């Protein structure tokens, strides 16, 4: 396997424009002869499907939910970044680029990130034109706020429901094309395999989640926009159905999987309350604009938080990071929350929580102002935690949120399988070792609206229009049979442990040993434990029901099987990276002050894994894409 990033030469500012000039175009009469499959209908997939259809390609769109509108992008709260510099506070494309590179701890590709910053402004134009009701100033212009990891206000938002509004924009654009007949739309379908013929992606195998039927779909190119793999941890902020199956099965067909150990833990989530818990809920990072994070100075101080006087409170972020304070990036905030809790200063029943306090903000701005900014988030907190955050500080704790790792892609967002693309959270591309707030929505829409529509044309222009192998080709047959036999195998085990029980046990290993902090010993034992549990899973899992019917637990079983394999790769990846970078903290590699210690000399690369087989243990070969920093100087990241 050879990793060719295909980054265009020339000055950073001109790479994308030059690339657009150089890439091949498909004539309108040929566009209608090409079929593109888009799997996933979130910001990346919805935007891509709509844009391809507008260009004149035939598109098939698939999602596991009952409607494209329910993709998990809908849950993003805080906002989307762009370098518009409307607030006149010194922002620019360069600064957004620089903050993103630095925020990712210098583990992302300069060219991709610069392009992201460049098109960010167009994304806002596009969304506004679609009728996305962003927050406005009294003069009618768009409003901005600030977010973690940045010192300028560049975040556009629609109360605490920015993801919802942007997703509905993309969904509506998509439905318009469904109406026009340019998109064939398949909700409640799950992709189970990608079909590769003569080394190129030529289609997919899906399961109709209502009838259980397996189907074959042929196309000239396939785009995976299937989100991240945070659910490997069992508890995460991901929607319950988010999974890694499409990406993982593509990996097993030859697509390299990059940086799987880079998993972002979000600092402001509602803490775990019990074993029955199915997921964690994030409270938008924007809350840290006004909320102050603290713990009692004294261990085991169980007084009501409002009774703890000012001088007995430890505002640890403000003290340790005076220039960013509560707005330090997510990895820094998460690690510090874990540290104070490990030191015994955590609050609440479990001791695994810190306070996020709005007392001072309410005193300063009035309850009404705080309510207008964060009202829905406060309501949500009260529903879940059963406490009123206007009167008592919220309790928060870090939770798994976003995965920066994913399928390796080149500058065109093509994986190592020609004709197979990955977009949004499903690829590894733009966030390096850590993602800054308000940049996930930006990347999803950038990939979907403004990158893929150009780059996929370059690939298709070199293909023969209308060339079909037919879905009775042996590659389709083989892929469908493999999917079918896995389903049959799962249903026939009839063991005595439930799928959720296995998933919960896997999640515990991954959280304890590949979580906020890792060390070599823990990672090695995680690998052993994962293998043992995986072996037990295949002997003892209990999958109910039948295959030719709606069967949610059968869906889960297939996804958990993939999580078992991915988990092992995450541990391998974390183990070989003998440095700390962004969210990846190897305990052996820290500065004297307890900050992450990077090793640029030896680890300034993307780790791209090639699947070799699975025989009791996962066999993978590591390939390295060296990251070259031509335009920024690598510095120790400091938010002091």
């Amino acid at each position, binding site marked *: 396997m050879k990793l060719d990033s295909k980054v265009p030469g020339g000055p950073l500012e001109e790479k994308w424009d030059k690339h657009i000039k150089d890439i091949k175009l498909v004539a309108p009469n040929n566009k209608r002869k090409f079929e593109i499959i888009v799997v996933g209908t979130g910001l990346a997939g919805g935007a891509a499907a709509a844009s391809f259809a507008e260009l004149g390609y035939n598109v098939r769109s698939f999602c596991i*939910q009952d409607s494209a509108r329910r993709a998990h992008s809908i849950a993003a709260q805080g906002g989307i970044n762009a370098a518009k510099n409307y607030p006149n506070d010194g922002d620019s494309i360069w600064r957004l680029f620089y903050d993103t590179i630095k925020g990712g701890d210098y583990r992302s590709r300069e060219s991709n990130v610069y392009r992201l910053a460049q098109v960010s402004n167009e994304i806002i134009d596009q969304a506004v034109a679609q009728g996305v009701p962003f927050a406005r100033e009294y003069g009618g*212009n768009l409003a901005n706020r600030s977010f973690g990891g940045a010192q300028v206000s560049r975040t556009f938002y629609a109360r605490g429901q920015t993801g919802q509004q942007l997703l509905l924009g993309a969904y509506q654009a998509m439905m318009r094309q469904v109406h026009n007949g340019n998109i064939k739309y398949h909700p409640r379908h799950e992709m189970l395999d990608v079909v590769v013929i003569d080394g190129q992606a030529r289609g997919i195998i899906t399961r109709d989640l209502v009838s259980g039927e397996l189907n074959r779909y042929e196309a000239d190119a396939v785009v995976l926009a299937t989100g991240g793999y945070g659910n490997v941890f069992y508890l995460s902020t991901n929607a319950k159905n988010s999974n890694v199956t499409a990406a993982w099965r593509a990996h097993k067909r030859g697509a390299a999987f990059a940086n799987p150990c880079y998993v972002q833990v979000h600092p402001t989530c509602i803490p775990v309350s019990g074993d029955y818990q199915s997921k964690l809920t994030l409270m938008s990072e924007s809350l840290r604009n006004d909320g102050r994070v603290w713990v009692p100075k004294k261990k085991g101080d169980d007084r009501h938080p409002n009774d703890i006087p000012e001088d007995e409170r430890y505002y640890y972020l403000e003290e340790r990071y005076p220039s960013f304070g509560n707005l330090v990036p997510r990895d820094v905030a998460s690690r510090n929350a874990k540290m104070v809790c490990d030191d015994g200063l955590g609050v609440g029943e479990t001791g695994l929580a810190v306070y996020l306090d709005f007392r001072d903000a309410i005193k300063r701005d009035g309850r009404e102002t705080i309510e207008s900014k964060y009202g829905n988030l406060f309501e949500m907190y009260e529903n879940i935690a059963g406490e009123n955050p206007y009167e008592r500080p919220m309790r928060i704790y870090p939770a798994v949120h976003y995965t920066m790792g994913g399928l390796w892609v080149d500058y065109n967002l093509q994986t190592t399988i020609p004709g197979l693309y990955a977009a949004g959270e499903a690829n590894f591309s733009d966030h390096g070792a850590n993602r800054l707030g308000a940049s996930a929505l930006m990347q999803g829409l950038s990939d979907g609206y403004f990158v893929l529509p150009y780059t996929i044309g370059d690939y298709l222009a070199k293909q023969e229009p209308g060339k079909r192998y037919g879905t009775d080709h042996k590659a389709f047959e083989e892929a469908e049979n493999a999917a079918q036999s896995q389903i049959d195998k799962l249903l026939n085990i009839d063991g005595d442990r439930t799928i959720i029980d296995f998933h919960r046990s896997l999640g515990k290993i991954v959280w304890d040993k590949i979580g906020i902090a890792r060390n070599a010993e823990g990672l090695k034992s995680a690998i052993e434990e994962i293998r043992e549990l995986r072996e037990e899973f295949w002997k003892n899992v209990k999958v109910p029901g039948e295959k030719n019917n709606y069967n949610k637990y059968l869906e889960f079983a297939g996804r958990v099987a993939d999580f078992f394999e991915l988990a092992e790769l995450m541990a391998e990846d974390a183990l070989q990276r003998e440095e700390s970078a962004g969210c990846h903290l190897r305990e052996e590699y820290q500065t004297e002050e307890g900050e992450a210690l990077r090793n640029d000399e030896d680890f300034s690369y993307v780790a791209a894994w090639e699947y070799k087989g699975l025989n009791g243990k996962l066999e993978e070969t590591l390939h390295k894409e060296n990251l070259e920093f031509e335009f920024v100087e690598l510095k120790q990241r400091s938010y002091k």
Partner: protein
Amino acid sequence: MSKEMTIHLKYWKQNGPNAQGYFEEYTLDNVNEHMSFLEMLDVLNEELMLEGKEPVEFDYDCREGICGSCNLVIDGRAHGPKHRVAACQLHMRNYSDGDHITIEPPRAASFPVIKDLVVDRSAFDRIIEAGGYVSVKTGSAAEANAIPVEKDKAEAAFDYATCIGCGACVAACPNASASLFTGAKIAHLNKLPQGEVERKDRVVAMVDQMKEEGFGDCSNYAECEAVCPVGISISAIAEMRRDYMKAVMSGD
């Protein structure tokens, strides 16, 4: 420490769209007050599977009240007893030890049952498909601040735009009308200058599609507003009617 309760459940089982449905009963002994309603159903399903029985199917995804997947009718009320809360955000602390709870799918001819509590709400997609968008192509948008939008209008549009498409409005309406859902999208887009151009075509196409899908008419019961988990106002329906009349009467 958190409280544990015994809860008596009665839930709808139906093996497919054409199968005969029936109620099944089960008593759960260890319901924690901090569980969400859906977590309580997860626990039910774990017990059922370990007893070798079939779990009950229900739709869910985000479990944060935003994706709109969950749609349970709990004790006759869409999303259950709490005002402005989706079923996934309903917590068991709202119940007491020994309570009996009945769980059904939303009942509407336009939402056929797929299995148990899972229904087909694709009619909503087809209503959006008929015109619930602004026809703008990717890459051709004007500079975002070129069209100023009054703060109040943007806020009002946002209030309607927050519809999660769960279908509670249909479930609660004696006529199984989709007017709140359709009205919300129309009111969102029609309030903004971006949506103005297609105002008339949009309302006619969407209202006609709503009828074609077999949803009933609105008779002002306002049950939809009462159960809407995000608090969409029935003024959306009034706006939809006004716009529809204007569009039809203007004749162009």
